[in-house]
């Protein structure tokens, strides 16, 4: 196990551009979707880092770059201090043992023609571990027990399980090789409300028991707050705010984070929003992002400077990094937070 608190993953200036081509035979590159555009952050050993943002902001692409399911255009991903973006062959295969992923859709991420026993045993086969049939079965059943599945269901097929149980199978498979890093890409958004909590509790328990480092991607800000120690907010391929959970939800500094929190529906008719701050318009295309600060086209605080100069991600106070020329003040943050989070009501 790596030392707690030290960076397990260091992401440096990571860029992923997907080319846009035209023509059928002679394909010409006519542009690029800048899915991830110069992103830098650390994931500390033993923590859960949340990545939130709207559809198309690059959060899943970032995760896939880290686990090498996609090749980066440029930049570095260091895992335990070593750059992994250039690793190949046996080196890459060995690396896969240390980083595993849980996917969003538990229906399409399990092979319907295999029993769940063989699905969970697959990582052992690929890496040539647990060669004897009996030992492998024992390990698989231990894993099933750990994630709350009945080990007797070893020979059943995925269609015999509910969505929540399938997601547990996905978790068991991801944990089979004892990874150090677990990347969960929207692990509960396909599940029914009453089932979500089962999977979220399981992930929290496993992390505490096994000392896992987790990158947790979700669009639901309430779920992310519950699960994560630190949270990164992405907007069109950039991290606009990175802060410990309490700071981000207590005092958001980037106007985009403020807008997201202002938009969260609160299941409490009394403690909801006094006044919503609604964003207008749509997210600009990542193929042609606005110059300067990418949020300036929708930002209520935008000034001339914002359209010309891109703000760097800098420390704003209390460990909060935000990329904004004119970060939110305490009053502005309070006016955006729902009443249950706001400090404005507290006696001055």
């Amino acid at each position: 196990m790596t030392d707690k608190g030290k960076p397990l993953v260091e992401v440096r200036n990571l860029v992923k551009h997907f080319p846009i081509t035209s023509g059928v035979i002679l394909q010409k590159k006519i542009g690029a979707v800048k899915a991830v555009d110069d992103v830098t952050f650390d994931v500390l050993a033993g923590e859960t880092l949340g990545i939130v943002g709207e559809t198309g902001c690059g959060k899943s692409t970032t995760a896939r770059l880290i686990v090498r399911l996609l090749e980066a255009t440029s930049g570095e991903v260091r895992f335990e201090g070593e750059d992994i973006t250039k690793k190949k062959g046996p080196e890459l295969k060995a690396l896969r043992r240390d980083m595993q992923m849980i996917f969003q859709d538990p229906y399409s991420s399990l092979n319907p023609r295999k029993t769940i026993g063989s699905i969970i045993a697959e990582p052992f086969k690929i890496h040539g571990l647990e060669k004897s049939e009996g030992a492998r079965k024992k390990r698989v059943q231990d894993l099933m027990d750990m994630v709350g599945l009945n080990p007797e269901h070893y020979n059943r097929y995925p269609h015999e399980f509910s969505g929540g149980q399938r997601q547990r199978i996905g978790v068991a498979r991801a944990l089979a090789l004892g990874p150090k890093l677990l990347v969960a890409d929207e692990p509960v958004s396909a599940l029914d409300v009453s089932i979500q909590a089962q999977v979220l509790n399981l992930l929290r328990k496993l992390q505490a028991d096994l000392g896992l480092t987790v990158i947790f991607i979700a669009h639901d800000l309430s779920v992310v707050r519950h699960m994560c120690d630190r949270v990164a907010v992405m907007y069109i391929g950039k991290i606009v705010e990175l802060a410990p959970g309490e700071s981000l939800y207590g005092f958001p500094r980037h106007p985009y984070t403020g807008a997201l929190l202002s938009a969260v529906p609160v299941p409490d008719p009394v403690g909801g929003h006094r006044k919503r701050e609604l964003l207008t318009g749509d997210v600009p295309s990542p193929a042609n992002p606005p110059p300067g600060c990418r949020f300036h086209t929708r930002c209520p605080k935008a000034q001339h400077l914002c359209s010309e100069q891109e703000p760097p991600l800098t420390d704003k106070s209390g460990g909060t990094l935000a990329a904004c020329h004119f970060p939110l003040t305490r009053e502005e943050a309070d006016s955006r937070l729902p009443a249950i989070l706001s400090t404005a009501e507290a006696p001055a």
Partner: protein
Amino acid sequence: MSAREALLRVDNLRVEFHTADGIVHAVDGVSYEVGPGSTLGIVGESGSGKSVSALTMLGLTRGKRTKVSGRILFEGRDLLTLPDDELRQIRGDDIAMIFQDPLSSLHPFYKVGYQLMEAVLMHRAVSKAAARDRAIDLLELVGIPDPHRRVDAYPHEFSGGMRQRAMIAMALANEPKLLIADEPTTALDVTVQAQILALLEGLQQRLGMAIIIITHDLGVVAEIADEIGVMYAGRIVERATTDRIFSSPQHPYTWGLLKSIPRLDTPRTEDLVPISGRPPSLINRPSGCHFHPRCPYVLDSHKRVDPKLQEVPGEYGHLVACQLSAEVRKQVWQGLQAGQTPVELRALVDKKPAPAEVVATVPPATEIGP
């Protein structure tokens, strides 16, 4: 809500689908009213029958293998017995519906403006030019920028939020008295969701229409609904004003829903309280109270007796289908609020009604009877 002048009254609605596997009891005796200009939220998980009840209202579940009974009175007329062509005149005119997935609900082949014009021309005797003007007005009404140009755009040229706006525009084309919104924001990002909800609220105030919003998201109904019905296994298990549902919910399933979602203000150290098990099959439903296999407070009698939707003593208009006593329910909810687990609170159920249980077990025959 004033039941007397209800715009819509659903009375003991039952919808059964006869399939090869057996009879699916999708909706099983649902009743509710919607007053003019008010908003009813229907909450439940997938397969709880919430969409089917709405589709049935518009005759969209009619078919050989569907059996529907009960009454759906809209302005005094029973929609269930209306012939198809008369229903077609109401559908899209007085009652309109918006669906969850805006991409598959718009025809990819036709321009958005044309599809809007069609909605107008279907119900109004106006010229094409007038319908086109109306389409532009509608796009403007729902906040689509540059409507004069956008009216000639195809659905694929719109973003997800804009498509949902276009769907709403289409539903509003004839200023319906009732708008049924089936998971209108589920496919959307939070910021867009907030825009759409604000839009719906604004339009409701301006046009005075009633809304039935169907969703699994308690946050959404908290923001927009006046009254909430919680559905489970084809039935409404609890119905009350929004404030009551959130301040003193009465059904263990409602408690489960409220406690299993993380909120922005729950302490992070607190674990979520999941509802164990999974939603039941609607073909072979559990005996007695349908929720009993998942209920942490189940007693033996609950497995036999099917609870009726009854008013909570002293709470006018708050209905619940649960056999726990009101006193026990109150204590359990207080315990849950204080962070106790259902396992700890189980003692309240076992201890408190113990004398009542004895009484109940003495004449078991009479209890099964009705």
